[in-house]
Every structure is written in structure tokens, then in C-alpha cells.
């Protein structure tokens, strides 16, 4: 027979595991239906300029913005999707045209665009990404860098058809 010792640490651990399984239990039905679509982040669309050109690189580069674009449900990678990227960098403010550019995903649904170093603005070092091409629902992301010294930033899209 095991003796159950009830103390605060055990209770917290037990509570945590119940919480963890409980939450995943709630999520499981959604998993059965497949990959859930990404929701736009608050503030994601700030200083967006529609229709920024597809570029090889924004400015002089030095910082990598990368990620993936997949389809909601089956999670299949989406090829040739246009992702728009902008940020406050060493070469321009967020709203300025030279801070904006777009790139396309490859056959694995991956994208990667070199941009100038992101600089903290409005209290956080962050970038902006948008999918806004019409075929799927528009999504705006605003990932935050762990450190302002980071040289790269990732963001991932799961898109749902309109």
C-alpha cells in the first residue's frame, strides 16, 4: 500500500498534471480534426502597407526572418504563398516603405527573408508578418524576439480557406 503524503508541493504537482492532461484532453478533439488555423495577433497589422513588393532582401540584410505556411486541417505545406514582412530596423522605421518587403514560400511551405537588424520599438523588439493574398483568410503576426541581440526570428502560419 502506498502512503499518500499530502503537502503543498504534492498538491501543486498533482494539480499541474491534472491541468496538463485536462487541457490536452480538451484539445484532443481539435487534433482529430487536424491542425488548427493560426489566429492573428493583437497589434499584428500595425503599420501594414498592402502590396509591398517581393524582394530578394530588405535593405542590407543581416537578420533572418523565417517560418512556414501550412494549410489548416491536414497541415500540408503551402507552396508559393506570399508572406509580407516589416519591422523597425537599423535602416528604417516600421511605417516607412523601405522597411517592408514580401517573399514566397517554397515547395516545403518554408519562407526566409533577410532584413536589416530589428531594433526594439514601442518597448519590445518585434517583427510583423502578414498573409493577405485572398485565397486563405488574412493573418497578421507580431512575434517578439527573446533578446534584442537575436539575429533571427521565426513565425508560422496555418491558413484556412476563405
Amino acid at each position, binding site marked *: 500500500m502506498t502512503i499518500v503524503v499530502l503537502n503543498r508541493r504534492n498538491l501543486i504537482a498533482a494539480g499541474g498534471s491534472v491541468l496538463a492532461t485536462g487541457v490536452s484532453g480538451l484539445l484532443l478533439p481539435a487534433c482529430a480534426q487536424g491542425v488548427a488555423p493560426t489566429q492573428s495577433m*493583437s497589434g*499584428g497589422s500595425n503599420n501594414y502597407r498592402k502590396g509591398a513588393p517581393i524582394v530578394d532582401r530588405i535593405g542590407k540584410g543581416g537578420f533572418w526572418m523565417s517560418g512556414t505556411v501550412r494549410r489548416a486541417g491536414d497541415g500540408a505545406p503551402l507552396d508559393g504563398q506570399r508572406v509580407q514582412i516589416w519591422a*523597425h530596423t537599423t535602416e528604417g*522605421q516600421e*511605417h516607412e516603405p523601405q522597411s517592408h518587403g514580401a517573399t514566397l514560400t517554397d515547395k516545403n511551405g518554408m519562407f526566409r527573408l533577410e532584413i536589416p537588424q530589428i531594433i526594439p520599438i514601442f518597448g519590445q523588439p518585434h517583427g510583423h508578418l502578414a498573409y493577405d493574398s485572398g485565397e486563405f483568410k488574412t493573418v497578421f503576426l507580431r512575434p517578439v524576439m527573446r533578446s534584442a541581440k537575436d539575429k533571427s526570428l521565426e513565425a508560422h502560419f496555418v491558413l484556412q480557406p476563405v
Partner: protein
Amino acid sequence: MRLARLALIWAALAAAICVPIAAAATSPLLEWRGSVYILAGFAGIVGLGLLLVQPLLAGGYLPGLSAYRGRLAHHWIGGALVVAVVVHVGGLWIMSPPDMIDALLFASPTPFSPFGVIAMWAIFAVALLAAFRRRLGLRTWRIAHMVLAAVIVVGSVVHGMLIEGAMETVSKAALCALVLGAAMKVMVDLVRRMRATSRGESVARR
């Protein structure tokens, strides 16, 4: 000896405010920022510095100032705080309207924004109440001002500490700790004094 103590206290106060401002002025981030954004940011830093002076004046802790002059300075610096907040918010609005609107509507993704916005409204509320303080009565005014001052201090300190910006971390944390400490000291003293007065009044009534 007394003069030396006086000079030391004022020098320490000047250093507590000026060192963080000077450190922020050497921030490499400024190179990539426009003048309006820099002005708005420094208005915030100056505002934080003024938050240290206010409780010290209110408590009469600064030597060489008469009670009357101290109170007068407290009023004027309160006005300066309102101006600093207006420049801070106005400048950031000009810099990036959508980010400022998000912050003011409590819809911002940045965790520090609501603390700053709440502190801003509390500063405006104190300024408004101060204009009508004679009608409020001393006791009501003091309690209202103290509650709002606590909101201003806590809101501003959390706001400042969570921001990753031009301020240098150690000097910012030191200034924030001093602001918190000064506010707590003056509030504890005031509550004690108010209790003593009301006890005195009840004794006198007997």
C-alpha cells in the same frame, strides 16, 4: 556639517534622476530613432524622475526648503508631470498611431501598456482633483490623492521596468526602487499623522 548634509541630499537626488537620463542618452537605440520618438521617450524618463521628487516634497524630506516652498514646488512639478505625460503619449502617437491607439484602448500586445495608461489617467485625475481640492475638504482630498498617487507610482514603475527601450537596466531599476521607497515612506508618515490628528481631535472633543 548641516550644510554638508544638505548638499549631499540634494546631490544624491540630482544623481538619482540625472544618471538614468544620461545613461539613456548614450543608448545605441537612439541612432535608429526619429527625433519625435526620442523626445517622447525622454519625456517618459523625465516623468519617472519627477515621480521621485514629488513624494520627497510632499513629505518635506528635502532640507533647505520651507514647507510653503515645498508645497508650491510639488504643485508645479505635478503640472510638469502632466506635460511630460502629454508629450510622451502625444509623441508616441505621432510616431506610430496604431500602436498608441491599441495602448489607449487596452488592446495592446505589450504587457506594459495598460500600466502606463492607468498611471496616465491617475495623473490626470490628480491634476483635476487638485484644481477642486478646496471644495473636497482636506481629508477627502488627501485620501483621494494618496490612493491615486499609489496607482501612479506602481503603474509607472511596472510600466518602466517591463519596457525594453533606451533606459539602461540598472539605473532604471535603481530609480524605480527609489520612487517606490519614497512613495511608501511619505504614505506611511501621512497615515500616521492623519491618525494622530484624528485622535487629537477626539481627545479635544472630550
